[in-house]
């Protein structure tokens, strides 16, 4: 499909007040809409508490709860967090007696070790992977974290 064709279609939609336009051909799909936005695309990155209904289903079911909205907000701010790269147990310090790797207010570079995640008896150092200042620590010491779980807010 040529861009001229698409342009013509968009003009037609505008002129004729179409709300939706879809075309699907071999190896190609096009979907245009006017007004109304699609929430489903965002939902896949939401951190999911165990056993609760998924955002997608929830959206479809029109039974969104307040708590979900907070999570959605977290997702939208996701670029400002350091997330768990693996599933395991979060440790804020190298050993029970030692100082925490980072505290709120600390400046970190991408190479700064911010915590340890233990997986299968192996202590995996987690690096910040970005530079900034630690604004908040979102998990407690010795807490279990799943993949993608936000650990720190960084600015």
């Amino acid at each position, binding site marked *: 499909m040529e861009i001229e064709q698409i342009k013509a279609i968009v003009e037609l939609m505008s002129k004729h007040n179409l709300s939706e336009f879809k075309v699907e051909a071999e190896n190609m799909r096009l979907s245009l809409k006017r007004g109304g936005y699609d929430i*489903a695309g965002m939902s896949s990155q939401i951190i999911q508490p*165990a056993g609760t209904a998924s955002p*997608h289903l929830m959206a479809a079911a029109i039974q969104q709860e307040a708590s979900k909205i907070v999570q959605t907000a977290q997702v939208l701010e996701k670029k400002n967090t350091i997330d768990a790269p*693996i*599933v*395991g147990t979060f440790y804020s310090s190298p050993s029970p007696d030692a100082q925490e790797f980072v505290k709120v207010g600390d400046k970190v570079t991408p190479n700064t070790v911010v915590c340890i995640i233990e997986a299968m008896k192996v202590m995996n150092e987690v690096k910040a992977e970005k530079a900034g200042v630690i604004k908040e620590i979102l998990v407690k010491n010795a807490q*279990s974290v799943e*993949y*993608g779980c936000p650990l720190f807010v960084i600015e």
Partner: protein
Amino acid sequence: MFGKILIANRGEIALRIIRACKELGVKTVMAYSVADAETLPVMLADEAVCIGPAPSAESYLDYKRILSAAEICDVDAIHPGYGFLSENAHFAEICKTCNIEFIGPSADQITAMGDKSSAKKKMKQVGVPVTPGSDGLVMDENEAKRIAKVIGYPVIIKATAGGGGRGMRISHNNASLIKCYHAARSEAEKSFKNSAVYIEKYIENPRHIEFQLLADKHGNIIHLGERDCSIQRRHQKLIEETPSPIMSSKQRATMGAVALKAAKAVKYSSVGTIEFLYGSGGDFYFMEMNTRIQVEHPITEAVTGIDLIKAQIMSAAGEKLQIRQKDVKFSGHSIECRINAENPYANFTPCPGKVDLFIPPGGPGIRVDTHVYSGYKIPPTYDSMIAKLIVHGKNRQEAVAKCKWALDEFHISGVKTTIPLLKYIVAREDFAAGTYDTGYIERIFDPFLSSAKEDA
């Protein structure tokens, strides 16, 4: 019995395991990838842990992440489902080391049956018929030629680590043999990182007949009859049924006894399947053993009334088999149709994407195992199977009739599926007569495409 188990799988089989656990009073934890966050098993399990991103290598195939999830959730056992880590002896071994029960056979049993070439050797030793062929791996071209001369053409070259038709070539003469030999090796290397191949006599147009086994850890083992899985496309099963339309009860007893002999040779202790090639003369040959639950297990459940997933979990928990061979009764006829998100009109191209409307059939004798619902997005990352339709009728005729109306009712829009092909097959007279073999789909495929054009 276990208190809590982790499910290291996804889709319909994960849901199937959750259902069994709820009946057993066992808590479940779903280990899931980012791509599966919004799926029914994740919602319906007691707990759910995200273990990694969408690619299987970083989630469902990464035993470290799975075991880490198992540890933080404090589970007693792991159910691997089918595919992924289900036949991985290394994983079974590590589970043992971590003091977590692997719901399946032991690492030794998997190893003994996992390498097809050595499994065949073992079977030969204990008197299980195998197809004539190389005694183990074929290391070079000359050996290949020598063996082909002995057993006679056609021959089939197979990857020892293979499965699903990959690393497999058929040769009808000396001219093609060398080319096939190298093609199989390089495909095997690419697919399994193991180029080792072996050679066998090629049985033309055989049936694929497999026997379901059920064993405990106390030396008890029974078979639950056969499944005829001959309707395959490129070694991917599409329709399975039990009993096989060509099986007499005498032949069932004979083959069942052989299947039990095969499994006893490795002291098998879980659910598993012995696959046979069944020649047109009633001759049969051990093909391989699947040391896991299989996709098509529900048809055996339908005719025997035995819940195989519950039986598998109870066996792993050390319980003794409650049923003897003589107690196994077969009732009626069951057929499974696999519904894949693939376009049968376009070379079975997978069709991931959003399912707009999903209306499964219901009513008497209909079972649908699926994780799909209206609005579900099929990720492009995994297997294309989206639903299994299992029918159970008083006899084969009734079961075929149920397949017809249930497939007519099954409404899936938004993605292309195998339903049109399934409908075409179950409406054919040769299927009604039960006269098919593993070459069936290939033979009826052009007529299928033509019939579609006529309809249009």
